[in-house]
């Protein structure tokens, strides 16, 4: 058995690299769709505003996508690097799923991103639009496959076990496992929403600074429109996902609701759990709300507690609880802002409400925060299992020395911290520079393609 230190180091390494990687697709999946729509609208209407939006967001998208790709390359190899036993056991199932992701999604993205980023002026506008849409298909396929793979780890179905290795007995059940049907829509909405906040937040910054106003108004309106439609749906889907996972992984729900004994009908806001004693040292909650959220409008039902789960199958309460709070509270803030956006729109004040714009700037990273919180809940709440009910995380690691594992962890922390800084600096600089002017005296709106070739 591997030493506990190697398990812990490997878990930290995977958590850090996964969250870092995730924060890029969290933006670029939605951005690719946004860019494709903007370019298509430009193509159809010839309105230079949409070309301006496309060119500006393409700059941020290019770097974000590149970082996401290289950080994702790391993930593909990490399964075997640190989690050799896991890789050997699930390779026949998850290796195939991720193999399909590579062949259908990665290559599609990689093949067309070159054209999309560097083809402006070299290929026909129609080809540009086609490449943009192919990129969207690629990112969506990628989201699909990876959610399928992860959902199988959450709630495995359709397999048999032979000599400690899992084999698919029914590929349909493996790929479209029950957890997938809940978690996929939830994640798909999440990436669209987080891109919308990012776009809206930056648009709001321009409105506050009174710069590039048509650009800012147009993108703010689109972002908030998408958010107003999707946020209620996302809350509903998220609730269904939580209920499903609670039924299939009771320990996860018990941990993220922050109760030990099943005697609380409230909703916990803050807890300080004491894992050894099996109780909370400190907790703050709203009475009856837990029962109401659990669909008991009388407010009496008790929220299940973690003591219901045997001690050696309990996740650590800290991470799922606060991961869930990070997701949920951010989601409520997002919902409130989207709601306020609808009201302001109704009253014709969307582009003049200064306080709202200032708040919007702070919401720019909200989607990424919520997605990270959600994934922390999903992954830490599944512990001590790596594949729920089948393989324990402690039994999944490679035969590594502590020194080698630690060196890897330090390397990733150092490089990723640097990259995060560079990425944020790049965004700030690009936003400060602002979208470029497109309308010159020579070009008119009647000849949009002339503009892109000039």
């Amino acid at each position, binding site marked *: 058995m591997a030493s506990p230190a190697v398990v812990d180091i490997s878990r930290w390494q995977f958590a850090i690299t996964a969250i870092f990687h995730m924060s890029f697709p969290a933006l670029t999946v939605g951005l690719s769709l946004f860019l494709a729509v903007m370019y298509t609208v430009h193509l159809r209407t010839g309105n230079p505003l949409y070309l301006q939006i496309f060119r500006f967001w393409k700059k941020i998208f290019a770097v974000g996508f590149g970082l996401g790709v290289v950080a994702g390359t790391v993930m593909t190899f990490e399964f075997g690097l640190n989690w050799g036993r896991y890789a050997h056991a699930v390779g026949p199932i998850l290796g195939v799923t991720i193999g399909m992701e590579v062949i259908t999604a990665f*290559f599609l993205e990689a093949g067309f991103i070159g054209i999309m980023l560097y083809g402006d*002026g070299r290929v026909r506008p129609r080809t540009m639009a086609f490449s943009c849409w192919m990129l969207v298909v690629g990112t969506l396929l990628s989201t699909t496959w990876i959610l399928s793979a992860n959902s199988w780890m959450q709630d495995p179905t359709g397999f048999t076990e032979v000599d400690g290795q899992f084999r698919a007995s029914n590929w349909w059940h493996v790929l479209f496992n029950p957890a997938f049907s809940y978690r996929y829509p939830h994640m798909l909405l999440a990436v669209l929403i987080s891109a919308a906040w990012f776009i809206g937040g930056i648009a709001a910054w321009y409105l506050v600074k009174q710069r590039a106003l048509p650009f800012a108004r147009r993108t703010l309106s689109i972002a908030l429109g998408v958010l107003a439609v999707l946020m209620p749906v996302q809350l509903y889907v998220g609730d269904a996902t939580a209920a499903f996972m609670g039924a299939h992984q009771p320990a996860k729900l018990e941990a993220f609701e922050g109760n030990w004994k099943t005697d609380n009908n409230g909703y916990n806001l803050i807890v300080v759990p004491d894992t050894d004693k099996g109780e909370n040292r400190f907790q703050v909650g709203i009475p009856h709300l837990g029962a109401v*959220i659990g669909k008991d409008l009388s407010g009496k039902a008790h929220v299940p507690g973690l003591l219901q789960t045997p001690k050696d199958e309990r996740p650590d309460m800290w991470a799922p609880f606060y991961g869930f709070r990070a997701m949920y509270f951010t989601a409520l803030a997002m919902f409130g802002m989207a709601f306020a956006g609808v009201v302001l729109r109704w009253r014709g004040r969307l582009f003049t409400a200064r306080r709202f714009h200032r708040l919007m700037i702070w919401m720019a990273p909200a989607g990424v925060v919520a997605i990270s919180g959600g994934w922390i809940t999903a992954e830490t709440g599944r512990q001590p299992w790596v594949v729920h009910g089948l393989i324990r995380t402690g039994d999944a690691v490679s035969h590594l020395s502590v020194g080698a594992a630690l060196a890897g962890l330090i390397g990733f922390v150092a490089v990723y911290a640097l990259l995060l800084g560079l990425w944020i600096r790049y965004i700030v600089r690009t936003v400060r520079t602002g979208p470029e002017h497109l309308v010159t005296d020579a070009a008119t709106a009647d000849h949009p393609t002339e503009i892109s070739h000039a």
Partner: protein
Amino acid sequence: MLDVASYALLLFALGAYVLLDGYDLGIGVLSLFDRSDQRRKEYSELIATAWDANESWLILAGVVLWAGLPGVYATVLSGVYLPLIVMLLAIVLRGTAIELQSAAPGYRRGWGLVFGLSSLVVTVCQGLVIGAVLSGLPHRGGVFSGNTWDWLTPYSVLCALGLVAVYLLAGAAWLQDKTTGTAHGRAGRLGRPLVLAVAVAGLVLGFGLSSADPQHLRFDQPLRTALFGLAVAVAVVCAAIAWYGFGRRPDWRPFAAVAGAEAAGLLALVAATAPVVVPPDLTVHTAAGPHGSQLFLLIGVGGCMPVVLAYNIYAWWVFRGKFAQPPALPDAAGPSDTAAAAERSAPVAPPASDGPWAVVVARRVLLTLLAVAVAAVSQDVFGGVGVWIDRVGVALFAVTALAVWIRSDHRSSAAGAFDLQAAER
């Protein structure tokens, strides 16, 4: 039989990677030796359109290995942990450098240096990995069981040097194909010494393999010997063509020859070692995954492969011919805040009057309550009463929001809020 097909797929992906990412890594290393900033920027631009696609072959090789031969994946990846981690970190830095360099307006010497050095590190690490795998890794129960530094052997170091030479050769050949002027001339002059270096590396590594490899190469089967001989002969011929082609027209010939030589070299290696994948005893058959997975993998990946190749070729074709600076886009006339003054007067809806403060407060309280109610409905809280309530409610809110969005967009548009030309004039 299926396991052999999986192995062939793996070799195909690996070969494509070595050829394609090989040239862009080679160009990265070559950029370290070019003093002209303008040409360095050109090298980086030259591969900016393709590095992502080239690198995808590495990921494909990785996952085909995982799905098709999980025994090898689990043994090799943890067995050569440190070089692989360093390689991944270098890949991360390299991608960042290419993208940030390409997004930057001018040439950034720092990014150029990161790009070149990380290309070198990636190459060296890959050479170490190949050397370590060829000289064998201990394993037990499908996973690696050796020590942290097992990968560091004289043979793996030689492999690293050899791979640097191979990638440099591919890089020089690509440069001759894609560039003009000084870079083109340099590539032509560099080519022949590099062909020589690769030939020497091939000889040293080929003869070294029999002493590094714990299992003896078996040349007693005629088919194996014939294949090996044929592959070596093809490699020699291709090397000769490359030697002849450097510095001469047509410019694509050296790269085609290098591609042929690399494919033949890989084939020779496989002919000498198959079915052993990782010496001493990890063979294709013992490491293979179950039948069903192999089948799914081969149908899925194999079925998509023609499509993948088609659009990869298309993407290559779009940027075919000599590298040219991208056509100038319309001038970015600097930051757009100069337009702000004009925009302030742009017509937007006049602010509505708020009325007495009591009305304002009452309206805000009501709106807050409404928001809480909408949130509760969206949270499926009333699902306890009637299953349909929340679904219908959510649909209603989404449709309402959409309607408000469309209505207000029409109004703003009519009021000229989105009129770029009016704002910029």
